[in-house]
């Protein structure tokens, strides 16, 4: 009788498979880490990094002008086109210009509202504002771009509002595209700045004012440096998203082209994937330059 119950207890103590795996994982943190990383790193490595590297390689291929088939091999033809044809340098400079303008405009808009949300507004107002900023992200990018097509049109609300005061709508132009792009990426700039401002401890601001600094001095010397990683993180979004855009410029930019248009038309209409790959490397290089320049600010942890 007594022996029986001991045997029974031993059977019950026999750990299940899940239990054994759990014990093994608990005692081996390195194994745990490897298992956590294996699936996502394999996915990103095989799908994304491999595709990026393949793009880099493809940029050195050429297209047979008769058959339209891609010829593998090493050729600098695409890069020669890229550097000698004035179209590419014009469009590259224009795209960088628009991206800079959009980024500056967005930061100018985002700083005051993010500061108000993080440090001035009551908890209730802050909650409402965060939702108000997030909500437009649920509306499709295309819907918003077409909304601006209607806002900017000759018979649109901008013309209706501005003509009585002697101004006019910018219409479908580079300015129109810049405004629309700023509009589209604004939430992506506000949110990281807001997040970084929220982390600034209030007692730092109080200490600054106790030491005699006026509101503006505190903002300039205490708030701004602490918000910088968030500002840079926001600028990465607006800059990168603008560099790659080809839809907004088609909808509200008139006949103007951006880098994205050149890439897209070479993939589609012109059927010259290698040239498209070479053009696509331009924004990649710009972004890598920008990322390595801002790496030290800690912005990459604020994305």
């Amino acid at each position, binding site marked *: 009788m007594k022996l029986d119950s001991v045997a029974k207890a031993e059977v019950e103590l026999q750990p299940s498979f899940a239990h054994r795996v759990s014990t093994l994982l608990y005692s081996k943190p390195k194994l745990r880490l490897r298992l956590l990383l294996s699936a996502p790193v394999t*996915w990103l*490595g095989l799908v994304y990094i491999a595709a990026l590297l393949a*793009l880099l390689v493809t940029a050195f291929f050429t297209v047979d002008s008769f058959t339209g088939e891609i010829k593998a091999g090493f050729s600098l033809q695409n890069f020669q086109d890229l550097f000698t044809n004035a179209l590419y340098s014009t469009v590259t400079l224009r795209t960088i210009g628009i991206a800079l303008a959009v980024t500056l405009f967005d930061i100018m808009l985002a700083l005051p509202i993010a500061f108000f949300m993080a440090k001035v507004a009551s908890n209730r107002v802050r909650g409402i504002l965060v939702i108000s900023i997030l909500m437009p992200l649920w509306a499709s990018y295309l819907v*918003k771009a077409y909304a601006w097509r*209607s806002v900017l049109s000759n*018979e649109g609300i901008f013309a209706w509002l501005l003509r009585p005061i002697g101004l006019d709508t910018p219409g479908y132009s580079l300015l129109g595209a810049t405004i629309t792009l700023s509009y589209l990426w604004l939430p992506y700039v506000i949110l990281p700045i807001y997040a970084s401002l929220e982390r600034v401890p209030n007692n730092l601001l109080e200490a600054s004012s106790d030491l005699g600094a006026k509101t503006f001095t505190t903002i300039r010397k205490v708030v701004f440096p602490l918000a910088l990683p968030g500002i840079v993180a926001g600028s990465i979004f607006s800059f*990168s998203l603008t560099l790659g855009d080809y839809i907004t410029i088609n909808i509200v930019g008139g006949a103007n082209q951006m880098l994205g248009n050149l890439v897209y038309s070479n993939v589609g209409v012109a059927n010259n994937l290698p040239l498209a790959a070479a053009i696509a490397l331009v924004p990649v290089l710009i972004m890598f330059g920008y990322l390595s320049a801002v790496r030290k600010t800690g912005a990459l942890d604020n994305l």
Partner: protein
Amino acid sequence: MNISKPARYILVGITSLILTFIYLPLFVVLINSFNSSINMKWPPPSFTLLWWQKASQSTGLIDALVTSLTVALVATLIALVLGTLLAMALSRYKFFGRNAVSLMIILPIALPGIVTGIALNNAFRTILGFQLSMATLIVAHATFCIVTVYNNALARLNRMGKNMEEASADLGAGVFTTFRLVTLHKCFQR
């Protein structure tokens, strides 16, 4: 923060202006869906339900909606799993190559979308010889969405800290039980 009255009024003013800027185009879209002018003339000459009626009869709309929802659902599920795994690895461990992994995760949003698009197009069509399909669409979207899940999960895990997970382990919960009852539970909490 204590700020002067005028500064506060200026901030409230700017904030209201920005909110107007954000909502004006959306409001225009809503009104224009009833606009009788096909050029979306403003102010609308008269109102009509014609566009809503036409949209409700569009079969293309339903097909597109089904495609969008399918892609969104599957891509979200993949991104949820992969993004959470990455966030757990990077928030709880220091390891060799951590910076490289973190760069790899943020690249899809740090590089322009068209670069990701054309890189995947090239990889699928030219390198692998696949036809573009629903499957390639889902793979591309999932890749793009991992970072969004990762960012949110990482922020939450960092704020949560390790204490509760350690307490759970001290009280005898296994790795999976702790994940299910503590980590996941706290991630769903507001």
